[in-house]
């Protein structure tokens, strides 16, 4: 076994070079480079944690803003509804009033027209009476040779016209 056979001859060289190369490894790699690598990892971890925190905060803010927007939106909608209802009520009242006014005018006109019609009818009836009385007087004069009083004839005609 060379490990034992050569021990006396090689131990000092083994120990010396081991210390040299492991010392180099420890001081240059272990103390020099590993902390930088670990530092990079730590920095990345903090950055990720910070980013996550910021994202969380942004999400919360967005939620809050959405909530307030919703409230505003609801208030606006309610206000709009109130406005519409009010406008509708006003318009309805106005229409009613206008309708009422128009109705009054129309009633007046109808009454006037009816009065006109009644007058016309009365005039027409008078005319017919007159014509009928005259005709009746003529007929009587010619047929019976009687000359009757106009007033009498008219009364008789009127009697007949009224009673059919």
């Amino acid at each position, binding site marked *: 076994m060379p490990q034992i056979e050569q021990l006396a001859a090689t131990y*000092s*060289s083994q120990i010396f070079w*081991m210390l040299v*190369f492991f010392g180099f490894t420890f001081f240059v790699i272990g103390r020099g480079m590993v902390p930088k690598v670990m530092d990079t990892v730590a920095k990345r971890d903090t950055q990720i944690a910070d980013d996550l925190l910021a994202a969380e905060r942004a999400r919360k803010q967005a939620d809050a803003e959405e909530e307030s927007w919703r409230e505003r939106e609801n208030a606006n909608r309610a206000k709009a509804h109130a406005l519409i209802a009010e406008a509708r009520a006003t318009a309805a009242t106005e229409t009613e009033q206008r309708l009422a006014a128009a109705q009054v005018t129309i009633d007046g006109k109808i009454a006037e027209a009816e009065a006109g019609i009644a007058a016309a009818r009365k005039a027409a009836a008078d005319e017919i009476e007159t014509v009928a009385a005259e005709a009746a007087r003529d007929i009587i004069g010619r047929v019976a040779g009687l000359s009757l009083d106009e007033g009498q004839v008219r009364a008789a005609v009127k009697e007949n016209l009224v009673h059919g």
Partner: protein
Amino acid sequence: MHQFTIEPLFGSGHWSIAGYNIAFTNSALWMAIATVALLIFVAGGSKRQLVPGRWQMAVETFTGFVDGMLAANVGPNGKKYVPYIFSLFMFILFANVLGLLPIGVLGLHAFTFTSHFSATGVLAIMSFAIVLIVGFAKHKLHFFSLFVPHGTPAAMVVPIFFVELVSFLVRPFSLGLRLFVAMMAGHVLLEVLSSFVIDSGNANIGLFAIAGLPSFILMIGICALELLVAGIQAYVFALLTCVYLNDAENLH
């Protein structure tokens, strides 16, 4: 056993400091290769991008793994040991895996320096020394209370103290020997099986069919197992160091 032989390279066999030989051996060469490979690996992942690429992701996975291991075993106090445990884990992992490289087909010889207890012992003693230093610096003589678990009956305090003391002192040996034995056993097993394949192939076709071929198939499986062992042994070494550091940091 030739694969475990240490040979000085580049005529450096006579180099020495204060009478101690420090020849630049094939073992030292593979330590250097592991160090350079690890340096390239980690440097490639040090681009410090916010969105990591694949390479950076791989390096960060390893640092995160070591960090998690320390956090689980030592707690928040363990953060400061990340450079050491990372160096330890990755150095052993690269050494184990590089030692398994099949560069023999190119005529080169991979050398696994973690299969030498003179190398693993250095790492084990280093870990043990850190545990002792941290323990005594942090808890002064209270550190000895580590050897007397909570709820020990008064009569048992002295024997338990010695039992715990022995188990504590055995730690650097178990740490170093475990890695060395695991790596060496795997390499020896592969060598024995490959010698079956070659020797039976040289003997005759019948013997090759009976012994060589099954050995070859077994070798493929064991190669995969060895890759697993390379990772597991590096992990075990780092994990046990973490557990021992936990004793030093938090007593119990």
